[in-house]
């Protein structure tokens, strides 16, 4: 499985990528929406894991842009919000949101679920 992690908190996703590699998940990291778009154009990924709130572009808007480039790409959102309530108002099911701090085993389970 190959995934892309998108979050402006560089330390967070760099560390997450290392931990995922220990678990057999290949993960590229980018720190902005613009870099995510460039990377998606050049590479194929199974899943994009996106932060909900980033400078310049929201995770939801980025998802729409990336979907138009790669319609088969699956998505998981990561949020630092206090709760997951109300996030389904963004038009996507609550089941694809994960809350920070992340439970890496839960992330892996979600990745496996959506790539079956």
């Amino acid at each position: 499985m190959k995934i892309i992690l998108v979050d402006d908190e560089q330390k967070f996703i760099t560390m997450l990528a290392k931990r995922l590699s220990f678990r057999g998940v290949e993960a590229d990291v980018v720190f902005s929406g613009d870099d995510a778009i460039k990377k998606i154009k050049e590479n194929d990924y199974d899943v994009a894991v996106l932060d909900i709130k980033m400078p310049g572009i929201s995770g939801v808007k980025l998802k729409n842009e990336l979907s138009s480039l790669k319609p088969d790409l699956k998505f998981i959102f990561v949020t630092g919000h206090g709760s997951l309530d109300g996030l389904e108002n963004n038009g996507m099911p609550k089941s694809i949101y994960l809350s920070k701090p992340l439970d890496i085993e839960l992330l892996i389970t979600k990745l496996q679920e959506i790539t079956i």
Partner: protein
Amino acid sequence: MNDSSQLMNAENLLFFGKVNASISHELKNILAIISETSGFLRDLTDLAKQGKELKIDLLESCCESINEDVQRGFSTIKTMNQFAHSVDYPIKEIDLVELLRLIVHLTGFLSYAGKVYIENDDDGNNHDVLTSPFLLQNLIYQSLIFIFNQTGSNNKIKIQMITGEEGTCLIFNSTEKLNTNLFETPEIKKAAQALGIAVTEKVPGQEFKMLIPYASSEIKELADRLQIERSSED
């Protein structure tokens, strides 16, 4: 409605809630980093138990990272505490430089905000004003948010402070141009009027001036009314 309740109207409560939400978001991000780093240390330990070499430089860099983020967390909590105490006194003499620095920290927690710089904050002049700390924070915070909502996170805002006989003048300079006059928006206009602060445009769409008197007549009147309120409650 009595005057102390004016200070806690819906708009001000919204501001208070928004700031607290941004602080909690920041603290969650910090804890997320510490959590990942400690998870990584656990992974390294598990690998070491399986006979893999434990690299000392990796351990050192994890410890440094955790320490950095703990300090970032303490700094965030200090800012949160300063903000929380800004409602202790409805009217107070405050150091405008300290208030501006607090607002700059608070806007830094917003993902869509750009950089804010304060100029002349160490010129040796007295920048004290008698005001409502909470309402003034709200006015400056909302002004900065308004600018960043229009211009985005690549924008840089410089706030220049000039103290004169009439009070302290804050000049907001935005590198990106705004399409709307900041101080014509109803919420910002209302907040400025309540504090007796004059706001004008210096360079259309680019530079705005906020003149904060040492003690405006509106603030003095509010202080007198609050005093009367307190006396009638005793």
